[in-house]
């Protein structure tokens, strides 16, 4: 945004290509929920919408486009996208398995689940299987402590997990 010097650093975004009309419409539905001067409150929803439209992960260009659309500094969008575990900044598998390793889940044996998942998928936390089917992630508290250990996958929580239950769930996925 600064005089000239910016030019080399920041590529100008072609909004129509990066944020197509239908995506912008979806973001607009969230924007109207907030006072006009707090347009940036829609950043979480906007990033989710954009990510879902891009095979589950965010590119720099997409984050920059969201920043421009919500009129906020680019770095502020990067802050949000790196803070929350539901955003991914690298390509991910078709299914993102988010295993909670916070206190309640730890007490209820999430380590066993983690070990099982890593062994079955042959990946560590933050990695994607070679066939591009699964990405295994370690996430912070999912707020479902009553039914720990918990895994977050797609739009669902899978609760009171055991290694057997995990196998059952994964076997049922394409």
């Amino acid at each position: 945004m600064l005089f000239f010097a910016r030019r080399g650093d920041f590529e100008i975004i072609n909004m129509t290509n990066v944020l197509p009309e239908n995506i912008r419409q979806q973001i607009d539905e969230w924007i109207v929920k907030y006072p006009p001067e707090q347009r940036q409150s829609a950043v979480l929803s906007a990033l989710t919408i954009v990510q879902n439209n891009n095979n589950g992960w965010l590119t720099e260009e997409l984050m920059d486009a969201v920043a421009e659309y919500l009129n906020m500094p680019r770095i502020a969008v990067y802050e949000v996208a790196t803070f929350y575990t539901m955003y991914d900044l690298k390509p991910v598998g078709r299914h993102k398995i988010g295993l909670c390793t916070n206190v309640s889940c730890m007490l209820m044996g999430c380590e066993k689940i983690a070990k099982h998942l890593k062994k079955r998928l042959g990946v560590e936390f933050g990695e994607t299987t070679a066939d591009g089917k699964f990405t295994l992630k370690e996430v912070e508290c999912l707020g479902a402590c009553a039914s720990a250990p918990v895994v977050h996958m797609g739009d669902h929580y899978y609760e009171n997990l055991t290694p057997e239950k995990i196998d059952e769930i994964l076997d049922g996925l394409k």
Partner: protein
Amino acid sequence: MIEIEIDGKTFQAEPGSMIIEVADKVGIPIPRFCYHKKLSIAANCRMCLVEVEKAPKPMPACATPVTPGMKILTCSQKAREAQKSVMEFLLINHPLDCPICDQGGECELQDVSLGYGKGISRFTEGKRSVKDDDLGPLIATEMTRCIQCTRCVRFEQEVAGFRELGATGRGENMEITTFIKHSISHEMSGNIIDLCPVGALTSKPYRFSARAWELDQVEAVAPHDCIGSNIYVHKRVQEVMRVVPRENETLNETWLSDRDRYAYTAVNSPARLHKPMIKVNNVWQETDWATALEFVADGLQKVLTQYGPKQIGAFAAPSATTEEHYLLQKLMRTLGINSVDHRLHQTDVSDQKYAPLYPSLGIKIEELELQDTILLIGSNIQREQPIAGHRIRKATLRGAQVLSINAVDYPVNFNLAEKIITAPDHFNLNLAGIAKALSAQSKADLPTQILDLLKEIQPSAIEQKFAAQLSSGEKKLILLGAVAQNHPEAATLRALAQLIGTLSSAKVGCLTEGANSAGAWLAGAVPHRGPAGAALPESGLAMNTGLGASLRAYFLLGIEPEFDAANPAAAVASLNKAEFVVACSPFKTDGLLQYTHAILPIAAFTETSGTYVNAEGRWQSFNAAVAAPGEARPGWKVLRVLGNQLNLADFDYVTSEQVRDELRVLVDAAVFPLPNPHPKGDGIGKRAEGKGIMRITEWPIYSIDNMVRQSQPLQDSATNEPTAVYMNEKLAKDLQLQDGAMVKVIQGSAQAELPLMVDARIAAGCVWIPAGRPETATLGAAFGSVEIIM
């Protein structure tokens, strides 16, 4: 006011103020990292925990407002325990590499941990480490040391108005970073070095060159803009190591622009001249002062006797000290030479006899932020006077409306209520339109000849909007920036600004270039007036005319016409033809070696005593921090001895204070009539005879004077625009030119070959070309039509 008690003592406090503010005011120490009086309250470091009576837990002093009768204990057992625990947490991930850290010895973390930390760490796990960012040539990073106080982030958000740093990640993985690799490009970026309480952000040019305890500090004044920011020069024995801000709430607050902070790096540039040089039989030779001064005096005398005083011009930089300006004009005027000037980039000075005693801001610098409506004319204020830009931003955050008429849509860090982006030759018509719209409703009594000039003008919708904005609000200010002053019709613009000011009861201010334009006017470094506005028997030539007039001799003080002149091609041609050219300069440059016959080495700003008068008319004197290198001497001393060499009377000053006081007496006694409010209105409402593509020229932030041009870190900074021909997409298309292609810029016989940059911010039909660069030094006039070909 309410009464509170801190550590058993009773104090009066402003209701709503925070405990830490009250404690700071009365001098009770409370440790802190994230709190800074100029930034918003984050309360994230927790170091300032204190005990508050009846509160169950210790409270952060920075975020707890005082209430009547509040009893605060800053060093009770409970407070101390809390502070020590926080300290222990903060040190968990800090590397404790003080011996190899540049901040060591002036580190807030080091100081506070000495008071509150333990000798031994109980943390046996591995410490985290963080990858460094490359923030460019000005700021060095060592992000492992960061304690995440977020002062730097808040500074960029709140003060700089442009956030490039942020806190990414979460928990233990949180990092202060730009995330996407790029150099920081704000013109006040260096302030985050001062703000950083640890050694995470340090000054790259200063890094590893000295320890804080080896340094002495000398008070000084920044030499690059008309604000007169207060600085400390930090020196080790006779070497300037760095420059830091000296707090002055009425000028620069606690801040400093990067230009003022880093320009000192030029002081030790390899181009520094250590000995006088003279050209004998076309061969340059180093010599001693006696020989050099005799050579210069003889040379000037010869031209004087042969051709008379009208064939000599003496031109000084607007950043020369008041004493230098005064002695230069005194020396020249005693010899009968009137062509003395400092208005480096100005071309239209036809209204100079109506000018006030000195060009002034009209208000105090601290009052900038109190204005309700501000009209900027031809001003890139954020780059020209970063501190003034910051004050304007503060005004807008308070709700002020800022209007601008510019030839480039400068991206500024404040909101513009309305803007007109147009070719410079349209400024006049736009201003006339605003004046006309205002005159319809104004009750101001205007001379009919002025109103007649506006007769044909039909205000456009946007001009009406400007007028409406200017009619509302109480405190109103019109500011003329560099492009307005350097404009080929500057006199008309000044007249129109005055007219709009009268019609809307707004004050009119001038943001002059250089540090000491006001001082130069007062000292008489203008061709039509002596010191304190005294009348001269005859006017001399102004800088631009004089430099283009092929005079027989020139005396240059601190300027390099190929970079500084408004028409470098004409100036260099004149200088090459001249019989005798003398330059007083701290640097030996190719240009000076080409066209001068003698170069006298003078001191840089850290090496001379002197006085700067800022835009509000404030006189600020300073002393030399160190001696000039080699045989270089302060400019005022060189002029004084040259005066002796020429056997002039009253040239017996021993100190620069004597020079200043002699002028001060004259200025204090000066009775100066108020300027004619509407001088020279002839050009009003007429479009200049401009055809084809119009050139817009600025001397960019790091090309403005010889010091910044010699400062490598500033030259390498991302804030420094690449040298090119900038134009918008439409013009490039019309000319069938590609972005990035090399094009030829032609101005009569002058030309230059430059890359083309397509930039949407340039006004239609115009090209923006920076001056003060070697690549553009062969070009002609700063404004006017140019030809662009492949």
